[in-house]
């Protein structure tokens, strides 16, 4: 059975801190892994990772995939209150995304 585990479940930090969110997975026919950010409503797409060891970066956010050890991390540097959200990891097999339960990040001023 496909499995996605995100850790930590919840994280509370102050503005300016750096955080690392983890996602481990066991998915048959793995093709890629996506990260989403969910604030009050719809998840919004952040990254798609297909190759091991190649960092994807967007501003203060970056992510990397390790297909041998079956995990991915999402880093956020110099956090801001606007980063407060649930971050969802979703490996993709041949036809669907399999979502983790998410990490809830709260950033306080």
């Amino acid at each position, binding site marked *: 059975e496909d499995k*996605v585990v995100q850790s930590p479940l919840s994280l509370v930090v102050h503005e300016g801190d750096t955080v690392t969110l983890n996602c481990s997975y066991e998915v048959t026919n793995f*093709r*890629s892994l*996506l990260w*989403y950010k969910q604030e009050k*409503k*719809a*998840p*919004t*797409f952040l990254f*798609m990772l297909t190759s091991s060891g190649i960092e994807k970066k967007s501003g203060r956010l970056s992510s990397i995939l390790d297909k041998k050890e079956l995990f991915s991390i999402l880093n956020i540097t110099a956090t801001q209150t606007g980063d407060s959200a649930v971050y*969802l990891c*979703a490996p*993709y097999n*041949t*036809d*669907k*995304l399999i*979502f*983790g*339960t*998410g990490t809830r990040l709260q950033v306080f001023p």
Partner: protein
Amino acid sequence: DVKVTQSSRYLVKRTGEKVFLECVQDMDHENMFWYRQDPGLGLRLIYFSYDVKMKEKGDIPEGYSVSREKKERFSLILESASTNQTSMYLCASSVWTGQETQYFGPGTRLLVL
């Protein structure tokens, strides 16, 4: 910009009622998906569709059915709503099979009394 819209943001229904949740996307996407999201369980796939009139069961299809009569519209139907179907329902679409990035609608929060 891709736009996925859902017919209602909040809905309150009674046990036993038939409930229709509508989703429309405006980007000619082939694939559409219905998820429910519950605390501690994440997003779980209910049904998806690769094409008009085609549907596939997801992980938790029991108690639900779907309809895709037009490419842009994907409906989720609760034939007889039950309290355990109280949840946030999210619709998503993607360009075609194998194109992983899914774009989500704003969600419908359904309360079944």
